[in-house]
């Protein structure tokens, strides 16, 4: 059974602005955030049938809820993130601690190499893709490639709204790719096209892209997707996926949705 790491949003709020979505005056409604998060976890556990590991939230670390940025896990090995912004850097020790307590081999990259975990590194079984320029440093990928023995194709993220790769690039279990073409330059699009045939590339409509259509969680034939993306849902349904729509508006205020709130452990 697939397992995901999550962190309850007890302390989730907007304390700082480190991406174009965050506005301190656009305050999170805590009760709504908690209920949206609980629905998400419920859908994952009950409808999709994945195991969910909850880590302890920490006061003063509002973004600990976005566990996708904890690091990258393969087998019993994890490489912990090195956040670009100091605001999130304090999360690193808590993520590392959780993995250590759960028996993982915990690795870190050298201090100067920014790398924001599964938010910027995702892909298919053979090929991983790494988003760089906004948050992660491209130079982290050769090291991760060596650690995990995987090919990592770097993709430059050219639109600040899609500041992590998982906001514009979502590999599906059947080999299809849900993506936002405008988030990449011609080199990135050519590199994607070389790895993923045209019939497998599913471009998300622009208006749904900014409602985080790509920040979806795909487990087997299930896709948990933020509410407000009907055309994307029909697109993946036409490929045989079962969609689960979850309202995640409170988290979008911070620039994240379903995928950002989870980290695949297996």
């Amino acid at each position: 059974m697939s397992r995901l790491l999550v962190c309850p949003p007890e302390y989730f709020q907007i304390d700082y602005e480190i991406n174009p979505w965050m506005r301190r005056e656009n305050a999170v409604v805590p009760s709504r955030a908690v209920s949206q998060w609980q629905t998400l976890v419920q859908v994952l556990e009950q409808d999709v049938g994945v195991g969910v590991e909850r880590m302890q939230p920490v006061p003063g670390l509002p973004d600990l809820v976005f566990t996708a940025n904890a690091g990258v896990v393969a087998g019993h090995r994890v490489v912990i993130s090195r956040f670009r912004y100091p605001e999130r850097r304090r999360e690193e020790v808590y993520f590392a601690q959780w993995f250590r307590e759960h028996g993982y081999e915990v690795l870190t990259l050298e201090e100067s190499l920014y790398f924001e975990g599964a938010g910027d590194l995702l892909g298919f079984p053979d090929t991983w893709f790494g988003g760089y320029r906004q948050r992660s440093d491209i130079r982290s990928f050769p090291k991760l490639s060596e650690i995990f023995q995987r090919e990592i194709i770097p993709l430059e993220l050219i639109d600040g709204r899609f500041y992590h790769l998982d906001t514009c690039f979502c590999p599906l279990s059947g080999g299809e790719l849900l993506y936002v073409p405008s988030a990449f330059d011609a080199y990135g699009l050519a590199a994607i096209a070389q790895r993923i045939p045209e019939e497998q590339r599913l471009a998300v409509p622009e208006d749904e892209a900014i409602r985080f259509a790509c920040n979806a969680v795909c487990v087997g034939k299930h896709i948990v997707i933020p509410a407000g993306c009907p055309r994307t849902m029909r697109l993946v349904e036409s490929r045989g996926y079962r969609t689960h729509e979850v309202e995640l508006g409170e988290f979008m205020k911070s620039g994240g949705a379903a995928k950002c709130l989870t980290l695949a452990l297996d």
Partner: protein
Amino acid sequence: MQVLLRNACLSRADVSPEGSVMTAVQETVFLQGHIIDSLILAKVLDTILMMGGTFDLQDVNIGTTRDAPSQARIVVRAHSSRLLAEILQAIQPHGAAVERDSDCRFEPAPAEGIFPDDFYATTHLPTQIRLDGDWVEVEGMEMDLGICVDPAKARARTLPMGSVKAGDLIVTGREGIRVTPLARPAERDVFGFMESVVSSERPHQPVIADIAQRMLKLRAGYRQGQAGTKVLLAGGPAIVHAGGRQALTWLIEAGFIHVLFCGNALAAHDMEAALYGTSLGYGLTAGRSVPHGHEHHLRTINRIRAIGSIHEAVRSGVITEGIMAACVHHDVKMVMAGTIRDDGPLPGVVTDSMQAQEAMRAEVQGVGLALLVASTLHAIATGNLLPASVPTVCVDVNPSVPTKLADRGSFQAVGLVMDAASFLKELARELGWRL
């Protein structure tokens, strides 16, 4: 993808920005990872070109399997350090990291005239050494010398082996030394297109026309006191024998030549012609030997020795015309280097080879064009003293001389296989000489 990448690689050769200076600044960057299929390498190379820089791809290792990463070392060049900095800043986010160089190493010379064992031998290309983190231009660039360092003043200069003193700090090894290949010159003349090919079939006229254009520009600059505008001619006695004397005299009088390197013979036969109308005893106009003509050059040398100097011989009116007279009248710097077969020699001929080399080295400073005409010995010696950035024309009936010069690896060395007199006459005519 492959097409994009190939285009990026191919287009490098086409790029030679108009108005670029002779040398460029450069920095080596290293790129690694899955840089091929991701087109990151192509993107970096395209970025360099689009911003107006150029590059050389060195040590490209393509991963043999999909998982294996690739590496590329890229030398990035730009016409100014500001542009270079901008390019480096633009490619850095794509992982192109500047290779951290180390300082150069240096050791004291163990004794007078002896370099440390592992001394660095120079090329004739612009060279920098890294001292305490900063790149310092090596002064007096010339091939086959050592580099002497003054760390306190952050300066470095070339030094011939024979001139080194015990304790001089001499650069050793190869670390922290940067040699800059020449960028193509902005001028679209024969020097700009030079491919170091020497051929007797090469049409001479367009080459000579280009040289003349250069000389006109240099003369204008020289008259305005601009640096690097001197024209040097190193020549052998064949200039006189073959009938190029008048043309060369005119070129000097018209202000096109500012430095003359020659030996005892050119001077002796030029003044022999002035005094007797012969060259090595042959009547220059009649074209046959005259009675006791073989003595003429000896009598000439003896006469000048009696007077004391060529300058005095000209000033006193003994020598009234010709190359030597023109040089004295127009204040052309002359270095006459002796050989073991010399008669006399004439006063002023430097018979100590190392001293002659030093005297020539002093006079090549500020030279912007060198004409090496009909003298293997002086042509090669002068070629060795010149930095690669100085355009050089080598004229000889024997193709081996221009070939040897062209082999120095500079695309600014033009070789012409033709006789000295024809060359000088054609050149003078291009510049307005009317006999």
